[in-house]
Structures are given as structure tokens and as C-alpha cells.
């Protein structure tokens, strides 16, 4: 038997812990600052207060954009599902070069820089009168929401027995009833996870929102950015903490639904296919 704390395993643990601390410390400091009472973003102190949380949930300069962000995230999440679900089901059965191409087509916006998409979308959206509107920014965000929802749904669909759909057809259910009675219930965890991921991506998105929102649709990240140019208020830290909280919860729930292994397997399988 090797000793439980061998030198190499110990050094790995230390290294791993250091990495986690390095990655998480900015988040910890932001959350810490949000609970301070000082009106400036000074170094963290030990006096505890909820005044900044009170402000962000009551002052209209924050609550308006907060509502916009929620509306946009919800809308873009729904839109992403409407696009991703048929794509995931259709491409799961497709084979050959064309399927690889289509798969690539769904995934590629996810890897495009937000700035590039934003510039393109701005020109496109102003042409058709969508610039500064809710639908415009929802469509923009679904460019990122769709690929992530697509991945989640495909991961779950890959683990289901598609013969069940065939069994339903043979037993007398048409394509629509088969989808709603058999397919949809079995991919529901993936759909839910996809909805969550798409929601969080939209909620956090900054670059496209900066270009595509107007004052009546402006989102929280954009308001934070504009406010930071004039003052550095700990209210921003409070908002940031809310963002961190929502993102962490969504990712935990989402991964529970899809299963980390399922998602990893799927991305690995896709990589091999390409």
C-alpha cells in the first residue's frame, strides 16, 4: 500500500487548491465588498451592511434595467429552445458530411467574439427596425443561447432510447403526438438545463447588449458599465454578487439535469466526429 499522503498527491492537492483560490478570489472580494457600508469601493472592511442590496432592489436606476435583463433573458431563453430543440432532434439522427456541417453551423456563433456579432447585428437590426427593441436583443442573445441549449438537449437525447418514439408511432401516435407524449418528456431535463444556460448567458451578456439596447431596453451589465465611468459605487459589487449567485445556481441545477458526464461525453463525441 502506498502512503495516503505521498509527496506527489500532496503537491497536486496544494496546486489544485491554489488554482481554485486564484480563480475564486476576485469573486470573493466582490461579494465581500458588496456587504460593506463605505460609499466607496475601498479595500474590504469588516463592517457588515445590506445598504447596497437595498439600493439595487429599490432605486429605479437599477430596477428598470434589472427588469429589462430578466425580460430579455427569458425571451432569449424561449427563442433558443425553439431553435435548439428541433435542431438537436433532427441532427441527432442525421449522419454524414452534411450533418457535421449543420452541427458546425449551430455551434459556430458560440465561438464568435461578442464584438464581431454585435457590430454585424447592429447594422442588420437597424435596417429592419429591430435596433434597441426587446426582440432585437433577444435574437442576438439567442445566437449564444441556441448552441448551449442544443448541446444540453443533444446530451440528454443521446441517452434516450429512440426506439420508444418508433414504438409510439407503430402503436398509433402520429408525429406530433409522439413528440409531445414521448420525445419531449424524455428530453425534458435537457430542455430545462438548456433554458437555464441560455437564460444565464443572456443575463450576463454585455457586448451585444451595449450595441443593441436603447434606454428603454438597457440591461444591467450595460448600466453597470456606464455607471462605472462616473463613480465606483459598491452597489455595483452588490449587483455583481447577484449575478454570481444566479449563475452559480443555474449552472449547478443545469449540470444536475444533464449530468456532467453526459455533457462531457457529448462534446467529446462531437470532437471525435469532426
Amino acid at each position, binding site marked *: 500500500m502506498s502512503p495516503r499522503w505521498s509527496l506527489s498527491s500532496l503537491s497536486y492537492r496544494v496546486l489544485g487548491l491554489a488554482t481554485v483560490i486564484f480563480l475564486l478570489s476576485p469573486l470573493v472580494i466582490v461579494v465581500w465588498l458588496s456587504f460593506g457600508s463605505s460609499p466607496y469601493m475601498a479595500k474590504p472592511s469588516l463592517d457588515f451592511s445590506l445598504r447596497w442590496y437595498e439600493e439595487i432592489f429599490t432605486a429605479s436606476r437599477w430596477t428598470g434595467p434589472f427588469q429589462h435583463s430578466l425580460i430579455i433573458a427569458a425571451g432569449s431563453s424561449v427563442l433558443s429552445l425553439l431553435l435548439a430543440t428541433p435542431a438537436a432532434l433532427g441532427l441527432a439522427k442525421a449522419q454524414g458530411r452534411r450533418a457535421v456541417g449543420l452541427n458546425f453551423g449551430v455551434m459556430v456563433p458560440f465561438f464568435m467574439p461578442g464584438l464581431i456579432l454585435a457590430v454585424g447585428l447592429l447594422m442588420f437590426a437597424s435596417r429592419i427596425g429591430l435596433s434597441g427593441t426587446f426582440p432585437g436583443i433577444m435574437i442576438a442573445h439567442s445566437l449564444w443561447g441556441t448552441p448551449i441549449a442544443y448541446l444540453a438537449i443533444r446530451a440528454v437525447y443521446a441517452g434516450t432510447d429512440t426506439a420508444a418514439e418508433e414504438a409510439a*408511432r407503430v*402503436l398509433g*401516435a402520429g*408525429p406530433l403526438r409522439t413528440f409531445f407524449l414521448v420525445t419531449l418528456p424524455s428530453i425534458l431535463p435537457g430542455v430545462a438545463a438548456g433554458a437555464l444556460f441560455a437564460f444565464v448567458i443572456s443575463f450576463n451578456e454585455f457586448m451585444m447588449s451595449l450595441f443593441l439596447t436603447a434606454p428603454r431596453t438597457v440591461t444591467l451589465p450595460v448600466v453597470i458599465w456606464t455607471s462605472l465611468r462616473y463613480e465606483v459605487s459598491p452597489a455595483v459589487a452588490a449587483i455583481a454578487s447577484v449575478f454570481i449567485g444566479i449563475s452559480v445556481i443555474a449552472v449547478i441545477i443545469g449540470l444536475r439535469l444533464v449530468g456532467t458526464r453526459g455533457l462531457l461525453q457529448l462534446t467529446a463525441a462531437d470532437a471525435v466526429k469532426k
Partner: protein
Amino acid sequence: MKDASAESMKDRVAPPGGGATTPDLEVQGLCKHFGSVVAVDSIDFTVDSGEFVSILGPSGCGKTTTLRMVAGLEEVTAGRIFIRGRDVTHLPPEKRNTAMVFQSYALFPHMNVHDNVAFGLKMRGVAKAEIDDRVAMAMRRVRLEGYEKRKPSQLSGGQRQRVAVARAIIVEPAILLLDEALTNLDRRLRQQLQLELKELQVELGITSLFVTHDQEEALTMSDRIIVMDEGLIAQNAEPSEVYDRPASAFVAGFIGESNRLDGSVVAAGDEACTIRTDAGLDLVGVHAGHVGHVAHVGRQCAVMVRPRAITLHAERPAKDNVIEGVVKLWAYKGESYEYVVTLPGGGDLLVSLPRREAVFERGDRVFAAFDARDVIVVERG
């Protein structure tokens, strides 16, 4: 069996203008191409009312594709499919009145057993009270009473397959399709379910088309076996016929063990024919039945002999065919002994003796003997 089938047929639709002679399933010139690959190459067959027909063949022979075309899960490239006289070739699966049992069970995981079994009736708009009655009856038929509220994940493999069977028979399909339905189960359970399924099929008189790669399963369960090879039907006959008089070397090799000796016909009379093997042995076979067309002089052919048809002797016996050889090895197989005898001019003969009548050891000179009627003469291939 006939009475039971007549009773269960009382609410079935009579085939249009057909009467009793219309088969429940008729397939004409059925073809399926996947790109340049020919999976099914223009096959014809029928399944009569109440009949249990197996399609047997190795993987890739086109048997599952054929079944899926009958179900409507695969489009046909050419040919026509009739179910009870109605042309269903281009109908979607839900309009064909079939039911299918899948190798993977294919139960609906989010529904409990009751809802799984009730699914087909719900799709047909049957009233709830009647659904409950018929589900209860179907559950009794497959001996799963009391499991209605369970989810499929809470059942064993055998129980899941019973649910799948109940879900299929409850809709009283024109034809029940079974795709390797028992393959995923372990050996003992499979044998038990074979008998249960066969009993149920006979009792209800359900016309069935069963796809399997397991020759033993096909022999046990079928009224008729369709042997497929490379998209074609190699033989379509009763199990005993397929076993005793295989139509080709492929069928003989696929169903049961047999020794194969290639040769050509050197004499063909009315009663018997003589085949000279490539190694120079002369064998006498019966010139009969559908193998007759093989047996004209000069024709190349293959001779198949079952291991159980051969006996071994220390002295030359008075039999139709006697080949002298040397025992290469032997093995104890429980109910039988197996010998491998090396033949003059090369090649081995597998011999199965019911018990160790005569003790031969490695290197012993023996005479392998078999009757002319046990010689199966088939075309090479």
C-alpha cells in the same frame, strides 16, 4: 389453436374481397437500398392468419430492415406491402395497425407500466373504462398483475419485455412484429420467455413476424422460417424442412452444425446420385425433392452431412457411405462425444456420437459411415 384464433378474430376487419385466403401480410418484390448498398433485394413472402413466421439470418442479411419496412419505420425502395389485403406500402406506421416489440424494450420511461400498456388504446380513442379492463387483462396474460404503478426502471429485463409484449398485444394488431425481442435476455430467461410467448401467440392466434439471428429460437417458436442471406430469401419453409432439407450450403451451415464437402455430380439416377468430392471420395446421396435440380452429371455441388448422422466403426461397416480416416481429437460434450476425423486428401469430419459406444483414441484408424438419405446435396455458395 384454430378455435382460439377464430374467437380473437371476431372484431377484426375482414379483408376486402379476400375471404379466408387473403394472408395477413403479403410482401411483393420488396427492395431497400441504402445509397449503393442493397439491404433487401426484391423479396416476396406471405404470413397467413395466426401463423408465426421467423425471419432468420446473420446480422446484415436484411431481416431487420424487412421488418422495419413492414412496420413503416423504413421507406421502401421498391415493392409493395399488403396487410390484410390493404396496400400499406406508403402509409405511415400509425396507420398500419401493427404492433412491434423491440430488442431494447423501448418502453416509455416517464410512464408507469399501466400507461405504457394503455398507450395504443389511448391513441385509438378507446374509452377509459374499457382501457382499464383491457390493460388488466393484458397484464394477466403476461403475468404482471400488481406491477401497474411501477416505472419501467423499477423492473427487471424479463419484466420489461413482458410489458412490451402486453403493450403490443393489447391493440390486437393485424400483425405482431418482433425485432430480436428476446436477444437482450440471458439464456435461461430467454428460453422461458420463448415458451411463454409461443403459448400466448397460439392462445390469441396472433399473426406474428419474428426477426432473430438465433437459429434455435427460430426452430423452437416458428410455424415457418424464412432464412435470409445478403438481402435475399435463401429458404422459406417449415422448421423441420429447413433443418432436414436445406436449400443451400448457406442454410445448411447456418442452421445446425454440418460437415461440408465440395465436389461434383458424377452419376445421377432416378433414386440416387453419386458425388465425387474434390478430394476424390465417391459419396452416394438421395436424388430427391428440391435438391434434384442440382443433381445432373458434371454439376458442381456441395455435400452437407450433419455430425449426428455419422457413426464411427473400427471395421468397415455395410453402409451407403464409408470414409476411412484418422481420429484427430475428441471432446466430451455432456450428452455426446465429439470426434474430429481427418480424411484422406485433407479436410476434417466432425462426428457427434450420443455416448461413448466405441472408444477411439487420437491416431486411431476409423471408418466414418452415413446413409445416403442423410447426405444433403446443395448448390455451392
